[in-house]
């Protein structure tokens, strides 16, 4: 059975601006979605005459859907974190080199701007295999 209720859908603004912040978390460069606004959904009756009339009469349904959908992208994205890059432990023979104190800055080299990260490295000998300590 075809829909007797029909709405045109629009979002304003589209695309919607969200905020992503980038910070250092331990030894990793981590992006976090910090702000996702309501997506500005609007529904307006559409279709043939009968559909438009019924959809207009049942506009509370549109209000219900707008209230439910507007925060969906926020629910799906806000607070999500993404590891963009990290200095992984570097295994060499029987030692492991790890990075810490990662700090961000900028540098211009050869006329091009770069993100610069500085770190402190430390080396430790791996315990002999079979060791429980």
């Amino acid at each position, binding site marked *: 059975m075809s829909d007797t209720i029909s709405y045109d859908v629009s979002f304003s603004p589209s695309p919607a601006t969200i905020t992503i912040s980038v910070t250092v978390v331990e030894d990793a460069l981590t992006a976090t979605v910090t702000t996702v606004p309501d997506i500005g959904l609007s529904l307006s009756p559409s279709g043939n005459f009968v559909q438009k009339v019924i959809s207009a009469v049942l506009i509370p349904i549109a209000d219900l859907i707008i209230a439910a959908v507007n925060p969906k992208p926020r629910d799906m994205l806000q607070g999500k974190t993404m590891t963009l890059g990290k200095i992984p432990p570097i295994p060499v023979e029987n030692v492991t*080199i790890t990075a810490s104190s990662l700090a961000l800055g900028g540098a211009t080299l050869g006329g091009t701007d770069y993100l610069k990260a500085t770190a402190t490295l430390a080396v430790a000998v791996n315990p002999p295999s079979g060791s429980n300590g």
Partner: protein
Amino acid sequence: MANFDAAGGIDLTSLNTLLSQYYTSAEQVAPGNNPFDGTTSKNVAPLGDVTLTWKLKSAPVLAFGAPSQADWNASLDAAGTTNGAAGNPVPTGAVAAVSIANMTASYTVAGVAPVGGETHNLVAYATLAFPAGEVDVTLVGLTIDESDFAPWDKAIFNTMLVPALFKAVTEMLGVIHVPALSWQGVSLNPVQIALSGNQLTAAATLTTNSAPIDTSGVTWPTDAVFVLASKPLIDAALAAGVKPYVGKTFSDSGEFKDLADWNYSGSLDSISATTGTLSPLTVNASITASLNVGGSLTAAGMALAVVGCAAGAALLAI
């Protein structure tokens, strides 16, 4: 203009700090069984089985640069012959020297008290090669003060200690690595490693960067340990980071006061995230979504609509 998307560097001071930490940690974790403190046995004719023990009394110190001709000529090659006598040329290119201030070494022939002593200012020379992201270390010379050694001691040490030290120093130099940064979802071309003064550096381009890598004339940061990332590289990492969320769907359905059923289904069609500024690092990001909405009257809703239409028609007829 320089062309690279990712780079890293470490200076000599940091490498020596790593070497010192390696020395301390090795002595704590595996005393007597590490490159700085070890034992090896070998059958040396006509003595029979000889056991050699050595111990560095302080952490070795790394330096970059070729030795002088005189120092080189006096150093031993892997066979225990002086490089001068063997006619080996002074190494060129990337050369590392590991200096050991004090080392004790002794050997024991079965049933005989250990023979040996302390040697000072031992220096090992190694060439460094950088094929496809690696640091290949080849020990090419070893300076060891054997002036106080008896001929037999010298023969035994050159037969056993020199190869053992070659192996040990190669393991020590294994800590020479440029910090590699693992970028989420980003493919880089093979890393180009170079020794620039007292800095070991590595650089690479994105596989999507078709221009050849070029670090000529670049003045690297003077930070002890650094990593650099270009805007395209961060953009690629951001794109990879948000990709799992693109296309995510949401939907629901329900009934409105028993009069109508409704439903919707939507998705996050796109997520754009690109670098705004690099310092401080900011991101410009946006999303687009789509939605389909539908519904239909229930039987009760349909009946009400019919009644409503009839009532309307009746009113119009009056």
